[in-house]
């Protein structure tokens, strides 16, 4: 186990350094921040001051080395736009995004697993066929469009939910959260559903496939023969075994939820990290873009690690193999 974790950690370190180079050079190639930041009326002298002020007068390799040196000390640079540490700006926005992503994940699991099992247990019924058709829609409709349609229906036509933004926040364990009040939940509902649709479809399909496979296994037949109640078979023997692939995929997908909540956040004006990223790309706020991408890389690396560990807990065979190795 320890060897396994150490090996994975070293691989992760290499990935992070490689990504920093790719991200930094990629961002460096696009546009010139000064052209976006500076007012039209500034003359060349002002322009040169601004370029020097942002450190953009230095050649690429010097900029990159400076970045690496600062990054090693935990400083990913100051935002060009707000002149505050990029990492701090992202961390400020992080609770909003995590709240949204967790809520979406919760929805996907709570709704998706029962529906998937239902579809798997009775594959030929009308209900399960409509569930599967529905899940195709979840996969194929673009988030952006669904978001706008939901907004039109629930906010404009029916007037049930607020169209955009985040509700009032309270501080829980030092984090600003909005799900503690009814108003906050009302604001959270639409963006969370919007973000969860794709994952929901995924969970349904995974669960269904797992159920179909496991239900014909010998140990299920044996349990049945032993006369165990079918609710116990489904909730214990079956559920536990289909959860392994679901947990793996969801773990990875959680990173995706956080990283790609960009679209949902932009549509619903949700003040999370994704909206910050889009705004930063529009304004060429390089330090924030780089810091964000680095953080996402880091997040994925950590999630992968956690999933591997969880996996070994759920499935003892993995643990045994690692011990032998």
């Amino acid at each position, binding site marked *: 186990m320890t060897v396994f974790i150490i090996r994975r950690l070293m691989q992760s370190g290499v990935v992070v350094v490689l990504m920093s180079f790719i991200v930094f050079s990629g961002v460096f190639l696009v546009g010139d921040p000064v052209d976006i930041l*500076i*007012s039209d009326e500034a003359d060349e002298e002002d322009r040169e*001051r601004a370029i020097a002020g942002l450190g953009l007068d230095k050649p690429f390799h010097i900029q990159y080395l400076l970045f690496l040196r600062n990054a090693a000390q935990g400083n990913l640079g100051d935002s060009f*736009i707000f*002149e505050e540490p990029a990492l701090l*700006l992202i961390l400020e*926005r992080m609770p909003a995004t995590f709240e949204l992503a967790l809520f979406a994940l919760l929805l996907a699991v709570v709704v998706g697993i029962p529906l998937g099992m239902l579809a798997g247990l009775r594959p030929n019924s009308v209900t399960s066929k409509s569930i599967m058709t529905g899940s195709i829609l979840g996969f194929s409709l673009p988030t952006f469009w669904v978001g706008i349609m939901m907004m039109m229906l629930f906010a404009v036509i029916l007037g049930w939910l607020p169209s*955009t933004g*985040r509700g009032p926040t309270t501080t829980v364990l030092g984090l600003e959260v909005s799900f503690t009040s009814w108003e906050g939940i009302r604001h959270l509902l639409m963006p969370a559903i919007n973000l969860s649709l794709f994952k929901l479809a995924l969970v349904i399909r995974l669960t269904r496939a797992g159920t179909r496979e496991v239900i014909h296994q010998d140990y299920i037949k044996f349990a049945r023969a032993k006369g165990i109640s079918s609710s116990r078979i489904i909730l214990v023997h079956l559920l536990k075994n289909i959860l392994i692939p679901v947990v793996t995929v969801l773990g990875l997908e959680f990173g995706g939820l956080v990283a790609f909540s960009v679209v949902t956040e932009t549509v619903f004006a949700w003040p999370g990290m994704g909206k910050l990223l889009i705004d930063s790309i529009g304004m060429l706020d390089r330090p924030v873009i780089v810091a964000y991408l680095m953080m996402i890389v880091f997040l994925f690396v950590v999630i992968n690690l956690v999933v591997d560990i969880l996996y070994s807990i759920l499935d003892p065979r993995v643990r045994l193999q690692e011990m032998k190795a």
Partner: protein
Amino acid sequence: MRKITHVGVAVLTAFVVSTSAMAETVTIGLRSEPSSMDPYFHNLGPNNAMLAQIFGKLIDWGPAMDRLIPRLATSWKAINDTTWEFKLRQDVKFHDGSDFTADDFIFSFNRADGYTGGNSSFRTYTKGKTVNKIDDYTIHIVTPGPYPLMPNEMTSILVMSSEAKGSGGNENFGLKAKDFNKGLATIGTGPYKFVEWKKGDRLILEKYDGYKGPLGRPWDKMVFRFIKSEPARTAALLAGDVDMIDNVPLTDIATLKSNPNVSLSQGVSNRVIYIHLDQFRDQSPFVTDKNGNLMDKNPLKDARVRKALSMMIDRDQMVEKVMEGVALKAGQLLPEGFFARSPNLKPDPYDPEGAKKLLAEAGWGDGFGLTIHGPNDRYINDAKICEAVAQMLTRNGIPTKVETMPKNVYFKRASSGGPDKSPEFSFFLVGWGSGTGEPSSPLKSLLTTHDKSKGHGASNRGRHSNPTMDALLVKALSTVDDAARAKLLAKATEIGIGEDQGIIPLHYQVNTWATRKGLKYNARADESTRGIDLIKSN
């Protein structure tokens, strides 16, 4: 009878009490969020609009930018060739209760002038000026030579309290941008006080009871929400979550117009949309012969060719079809009503025959090929405008390709994407909003000969050059007499655009705001969205 009156009075009092007790809050959905609450951090439209409600200025523009109105100054005049005198109001207090005096202005001016860090400084307006305090309510601003634009430029300097306390440090008088963002140092004399800014979400201002000045205070509290996505902004208005939105997309205007719960307010802006033409390279990278091969000769260097291209553009169609009627045809740098326009310049009428004749005269009767470049997320319908121009030129014997890109890529290439940091494109779309409310700013930046040492032609991306026009502009910039200066500027415009066609103006942008029924937005020519301009209509 008596009893009835009593009841009436009681009801009336109850009504008055209840309305005054109910704080009136207005919520506004903005497309763009400010980048800072520090008044000198970033010279950016959304910042300037938001901050003008919190901080005072000596002088401000009227809504149409056609006249100056006094705010913290009561009067101003040039007392000799190099000195402007400003008399200040004596009854103004800052949000923290301290008095406003000349010292506060001088503090603000110096902080703006010497600002370290930040983006695009306000030194554009403070450079070369010395401020002298005569007494607590009189200041003199001295320049090396005559400086007619002094009042215009003072509309850009916000005044903060010299007693504001920040987190310390050596730079910027110990006041950091974040001290303003948190509200610590955000102390002005404007009609509204800063309450809170949650980045990416909302910014809240509250009425300042002690305000003295010409601006209205129509609301007790103003909440600005930042909704970048266009359909979401419209939906927020329709759902009643916000009372007004800015930058209404053209595609939504027709739907909103027919909605009985919504009213639209429109205003022409100081922004002209125009085309730069490469006038400095013999071999221009995006001008080709009709087979797409580069040529050794650049037709765009000939004023007759430039004129002909302008005549091939059907501006009526452009406004009607591409801009859905929401724009004004342009023939010069500023729309009607602004100072120092030329009465002789009209938008070039669509005249394909005349254009062909001119081309033949210039020796290009067979035409040539072009590529038009433009941004696709900067100006209203910018990419569609490029496509329409290309179609019109193609129809008239100039086969034109279109290439548009996001502004964060576009502007670098347009300004310095070529060899030796020269502009990369040959024929490309840009817009210009004149902050000084008269044509000297676009003339100086877009049409005078590119000269770094003089600060001329900083955005002259086509490198147009005409010494006669340069001389007229330089003369105008030191002519204090308004009428004489207006004549010089009009003459310079007539040469730069009328004779030389240094750029091809297409149209003036018209901006649209949508409010819920019962409200009205007094649109401003500087395109800014401020809560103080949103009023009730009946």
